Structures are given as C-alpha cells and as structure tokens.
C-alpha cells in the first residue's frame, strides 16, 4: 500500500547526507531567488542550476512529470501574453493575422523560468525527503506536535480511505447501482459512493480522539522520540552558502 508521498529511497547526497531542514531552507531560498533575480539570463541560470540539482539527486525524470502538470499552462501563457500583453509594442513574429510581441514573449519567459525554478526546487524536497523524517525534524525544532500529527495522519488515512472507497463501490454496485452511463447516472452515483466514507470516518473520530487522549496526546510539555536523531555532517556551511547566495541576489536586485 503506497502512501501519497512521492518519496523513494535512493542513495544520493540529497537523500542520505542532507538533513530535511537544510533542504527546506534550500527550497525557501530558491523560491525567494526565483522572484528576486533581476535579469532574464540570471533567471535562466537559476532554473538551470535547480534542474542541475535535480539531476544530481537522480530525480529529474519524476520531477519532469510534476512539471508536465503545468506545461500546458506555461504554453498558454506564451500565447496569451505574446498576443495580449498590455505594453506590447514591437512585433516579433507574424503568424497570419496573429502578431506576437517581444515584450509579451519576454514577460511569459520570465514567468515560465520562475515557475520552473520553483517547481524544480519543490520537487527536490518532495522527491528526496521522507515526510515522516521532515515532520520529526520540524517537531524537534519546536513545530507543534499537533500540526505534525495532522500531516502524518493524512499520510496513512488516504490509502486507508482509498481501500474503503473501493469496497463501498463494490457494495453499492452489488445493490444494483450503476456507475457507468449518462452524466446524470454518474452524477447520481457520487453521493452513494462518497457519503458512506464520510459517515464511517466521522463516526470514528470520537473513538480515535479517545484513544489519543488515553495515550497522553494532549499532555503538551516536553516529549521524547523513539527514533534517535540522525547526524548530518557539514550542514552548517551549506546553510551559510544558501543564505549568502540569496542575500547576494537580493543585493544584486536592489543595487544592480
């Protein structure tokens, strides 16, 4: 039963020797850089750098799948901005009646490079970090265990609910309910398939919260961890480099 997380065990620097919080910092820095980098070549370099990191983490293939999700959107941005961007002046390309302007295309390019950098950075974190490790690292640094509980519980509850949804569909079909057919048939099948899941899940929350109470969930105060904290060497210099580079780009933007 796989959980919705896309994390996969691999043996690279990003998977094994970079701690989750440094990766979180890396992603935040790249997010800021993506917005702050002043020039197009700079944005291009940044995007290449991020994609390069993905290649090093041997997750470029799967990252492209995430990126493909909004490829269509990026293409439509080029079309629409190319044609209709407010301060379009100089025509770059004439295709029959349609005239694509330089300003629109470069604005679209700016948006696309920024999105590519952000998604590549986000995918780097998502594909190389196990959610439970990330959550535990955050809780060790003071993030409320209740928020960590909610996120971790979703990880397990989704595969469980998917299994129940399949059983519900079987039970309702066994009672003669049609699932294929006209739009109205399919639409009428929605509530008989979703409501049993909602009811049985909500009725269980009372028992679940009792079980948590009985195991000291709302005690608050100091807590310990069953797993010992993994040791990552050489993370401090990495963090300084990240913060330093982002400040550098920031200065470039302000005084460039």
């Amino acid at each position, binding site marked *: 039963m796989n959980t919705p997380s896309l994390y996969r065990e691999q043996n690279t620097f990003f998977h094994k020797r970079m701690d989750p919080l440094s990766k979180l910092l890396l992603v935040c820095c790249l997010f800021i850089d993506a917005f702050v980098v002043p020039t197009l070549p700079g944005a291009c370099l940044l995007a290449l750098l991020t994609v390069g990191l993905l290649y090093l983490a041997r997750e470029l293939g799967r990252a492209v799948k995430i990126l493909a999700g909004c490829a269509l959107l990026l293409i439509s941005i080029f079309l629409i901005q190319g044609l209709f961007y407010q301060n379009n002046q100089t025509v770059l390309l004439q295709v029959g009646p349609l005239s694509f302007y330089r300003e629109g295309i470069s604005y679209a390019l700016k948006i696309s490079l920024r999105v590519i950098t952000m998604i590549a950075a986000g995918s780097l974190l998502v594909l190389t970090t196990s959610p439970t490790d990330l959550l535990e690292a955050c809780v060790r640094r003071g993030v409320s265990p209740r928020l960590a509980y909610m996120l971790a519980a979703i990880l397990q509850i989704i595969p469980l609910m998917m299994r129940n949804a399949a059983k519900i569909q079987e039970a309702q079909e066994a009672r003669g309910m049609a699932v294929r057919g006209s739009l109205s048939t399919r639409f009428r099948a929605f*509530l008989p398939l979703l409501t049993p899941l909602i009811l049985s899940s909500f*009725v269980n929350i009372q028992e679940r919260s009792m079980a948590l109470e009985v195991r000291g969930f709302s005690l608050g105060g100091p807590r310990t961890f069953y797993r010992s904290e993994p040791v990552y060497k050489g993370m401090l210099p990495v963090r300084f480099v990240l913060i330093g580079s982002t400040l550098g780009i920031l200065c470039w933007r302000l005084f460039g």
Partner: protein
Amino acid sequence: MAKGAFRLTTLGIVMIPVAVGINFIGKQLANTLNLPIWLDSIGTILSAVIAGPWIGAISGFVNNLFFGLTMDGGLSIWYGISSIAIAMAAGVLAALGWFRSLPKAIVAGIIVAIVSAIVSTPINVLLWGGQTGKAWGDLLFGMLIGNGVNIWLASFIDELLLDLFDKVVVAALVYFIALGLPKRLTQGIRSAETAVRK
C-alpha cells in the same frame, strides 16, 4: 488548559485529516466518474459547516500544506490562503443559517466562490501572470486583457468562472451530507464546541 478546550482540540485535530482525506477521495471520485468538475473541497467545507470556521480553516490550510509537501512540489501551498478563506466564509455562513435549506446553500456557494476568486486572484497574478490553467477561463482572460481590461479584473473573472460552478455544487453536496448526519455525531461535535465557549 481548560477541560473543554483540550477535548475540542483533540476532537478537532482528529477531524482534520479526515476532512483532507475526503477532499482527496472527492476529487478522485469526480475523476473516476469523469464528472466535468473538481469537487476537491467537500471535506474542508463540510468540516467548516459542522465544526465551525476555525476547524474548517485549519483543514483548508493543512490540506494545501500536505499536498504541497507530498505531491505537487509546493505549488498548492501558495493557494493555502484561499482554502482558509473558503472555509472561513463557509463556516460563518453556516453559523448564520445559510446551509439550512438548498436555495440558501446555493447562495452560500456563490458567496464562497466569490471569496475564493478574490483571494486567489493575487496568487494567480503573482504566479501565472493572472491565468488559472483552465482553458476556457484563460481564453476569456486573454480576450479581456487584449481589450485593455485591467489584468486584475480579468484574472478575477477567469477564476470566478471556474469557482462558481465548482463551489455551488460543493455547497449543495455539503447541504445534503450535513442533512443526513446522525444526531450522535453533530451533538458530539457541537457539545465539544460549546464546552469551549462556556
């Protein structure tokens, strides 16, 4: 910690992953039944309606935070704000009785859609230059800014076109689901909530 408070918090905390799970399964079901609609906020709005705006808002935020951290590389974290806004709006409307009849629920759906569009527009402009990723909406957006319509207004209309249909249907579905909820459940949640206010 007041006795009532921590009970609601635990009950509320346990409810949130369920709400997020329902969002996910709702979207998946709409997909497998290939309905022309998202339906990925049923859990958030239902929790807002039965457990109040705060629980709803947290469900909304945690929903986007979770999918950002596990599936779509951080993108949906940007839209966490609009999930919070949607839930708060639905929670307040429900408290004011706007989910007590189907017509009222549909009006509530429209209001939620407007709130969602208002809050999502700045994010769309920031990220995508105003577009939303849905073909029809973006085509309209292009024509509007082509005729000199302000980019913010055009993006708002693009998003509203999208949200209106989705949120009205979600509001109607939540109305029917909430109608059928057992007394034991709604009282359990409400008694936990009043315990806090006492």
